[in-house]
């Protein structure tokens, strides 16, 4: 079975481009050009030199000794939190802005949940001198205030999404509406492996540098090219897609995707799409989706703004239904405890999104000899208010 996108833009039964005709020329322009442009030597050179000199890649693969001791297995942390801007998101925004420039676009729009993608987009727009508009749910603006301020300092306009649950889903709706209204000069930098084809594949390719480095670094440290497991949190799923990418076809590598259970799977306040969703269409893609029996998209919930999304990228929907991926849901409480634990044991304060991935060790045993790589997708600075409130710090 293939876990890569096919010619029609599908991963198994998931994917495609379910877009209104108004978006067809834009999406078609991307589809026809993304592979061609990103394989040009000049593009690859500019992309990799920016990843090296501006983002700070390769990010370390760090052996977490005390955490490993506690959970009786060998845990490595892929330090995406050390990327410029504090999360993996910038790998993708660098790639997309180089692409947008080559397509002659002078205006960039983006959606953001936790604000990490918004900051990463505003950053590359400042770097390239392009106009930047970021849509962000009103609820997220309130709970991620530092990131809103960062985007403003970087020269971006932040527009609150006031519809629906006023979170990531609604910010994405507003960004898509903006694109419909500005079809010629604007490129939409989607922040995750969601949206119409070719976005899921394009974003996964830009993020795939994560798994490429993991493989090279494991070779140095352990003398092997692949771990036994790769663990990553999944909202839309971009850090997971990047961390899994080079291991997708290697069935010896267990791929563990960690979703947000919110207050619990059965509480009605959850974002565990693989458990609660069924096949449907969201933001131009056929994928697993939390919805009413009638096909209305339901409001998700998670303490983490970056996982608060009712869908999941079509690659992940395929990994779930094919059985290739192991999906685990983690509650708000367990995630918060795991975030505190990593801070205390390793001196690393993770983003709450990432804390979900770290929380699996409590109940998911591994062998002593297993090499488990956790993608440490982001740092926790933006979440300090939530940590302070939760732990009465």
């Amino acid at each position, binding site marked *: 079975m293939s876990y890569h996108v096919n010619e029609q833009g599908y991963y198994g039964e998931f994917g495609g481009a379910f877009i209104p005709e*108004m978006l067809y020329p834009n999406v078609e322009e991307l589809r026809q050009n993304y592979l061609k442009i990103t394989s040009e030597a000049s593009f690859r050179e500019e992309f990799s030199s920016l990843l090296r000199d501006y983002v700070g890649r390769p990010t370390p693969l760090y052996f977490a000794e005390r955490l490993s001791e506690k959970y009786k297995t060998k845990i490595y942390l892929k330090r995406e939190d050390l990327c410029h801007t504090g999360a993996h998101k910038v790998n993708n925004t660098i790639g997309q802005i180089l692409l947008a420039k080559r397509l002659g676009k002078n205006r960039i729009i983006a959606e953001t949940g936790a604000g990490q993608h918004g900051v990463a987009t505003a950053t590359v727009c400042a770097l390239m001198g392009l106009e930047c508009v970021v849509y962000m749910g009103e609820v997220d603006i309130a709970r991620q205030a530092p990131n809103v301020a960062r985007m403003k300092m970087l020269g971006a306009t932040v527009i609150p999404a006031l519809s629906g649950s006023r979170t990531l889903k609604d910010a994405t709706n507003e960004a898509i509406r903006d694109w419909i209204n500005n079809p*010629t000069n604007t490129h939409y930098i989607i922040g995750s492996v969601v949206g119409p084809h070719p976005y899921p594949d394009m974003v996964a390719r830009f993020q795939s540098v994560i798994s490429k480095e993991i493989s090279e670094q494991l070779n140095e440290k352990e003398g092997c090219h692949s771990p036994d497991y790769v663990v990553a949190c999944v909202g839309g799923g971009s850090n997971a897609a990047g961390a899994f990418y080079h291991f997708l076809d290697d069935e010896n590598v267990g791929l563990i995707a960690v979703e947000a259970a919110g207050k619990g799977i059965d509480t009605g306040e959850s974002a565990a799409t693989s458990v609660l969703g069924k096949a449907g269409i969201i933001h131009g893609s056929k994928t697993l989706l939390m919805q009413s*029996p009638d*096909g209305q*998209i339901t409001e998700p919930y998670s303490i983490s703004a970056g996982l608060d999304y009712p869908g999941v990228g079509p690659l992940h929907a395929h990994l779930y239904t094919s059985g290739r991926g192991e999906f685990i849901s983690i509650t708000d409480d367990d995630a918060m405890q795991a975030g505190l634990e990593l801070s205390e044991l390793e001196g690393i304060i993770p983003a709450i999104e990432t804390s979900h991935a770290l929380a699996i060790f409590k109940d998911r045993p591994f062998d002593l000899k297993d090499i488990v790589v956790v993608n440490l997708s982001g740092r926790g600075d933006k979440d300090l208010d939530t940590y302070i409130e939760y732990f009465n710090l």
Partner: protein
Amino acid sequence: MNRITDRLGKQEKVLSIYFTAGYPNLDDTIKIIEALEQSGVDMVEIGLPFSDPLADGPTIQHSSTIALENGMHTDLLFSQLKDIRKKISIPLILMGYFNPVLQYGVERFCKKCKEVGIDGLILPDLPLNEYQEHCADIFKKYGLINVFLITPQTSDTRIRQIDESSKGFIYMVSSASTTGKTSGFGPEQRGYFTRVSSMDLTNPLIVGFGISNAETYAMATEHTKGAIIGSAFIKMLNSEGISGILNFVNSIKR
């Protein structure tokens, strides 16, 4: 014959009105359709509300949210429309997003449409290739016309492809925008209307988006078969209610 093609075969221009089922009140659906036919409207688009209407501006988004809060859902709409053909003879089109149709089951949805007397569907996020591959045979089986959209950015080649796949009319989106955004047409729109209308297409063109009064209606229909009004009608319903429909239609068709 299908009621849509019958009506399009006649000489007169076509005024089509969009409204969201379940708005302003849950049981207004039939009353609105009756008032529209009595006022001389030629075709009606019944909106099946969706939680995330990507192609719609604030007015239709709001009406969809209220309709869903009122309790509108697919089965309820079909049961409201059960006896519609005993009273109404103008063409009726269901307009909505693809996910609710997919969840209902495409074949089951189409069968219901035929049973109640729906003549066609407009599903903006069901693109041409997906329609042809997965839906065309089912639509045909139940005598339903699928309506595709074109925009000022649609290439001539693609307009011809869409024309070939269309059996009723082509929904000509007046400008690059979500619904209810623009007011009035500039030289760019007029150029686009003339350009496409001179392509000698098989299907007639009906213009939508940005039509709100007699002036824009006249401009849109100068080179095309008809025009669709949505957001402006919903705004009127909001302020005047169903009793304002006759005056509204007269003001457009004067």
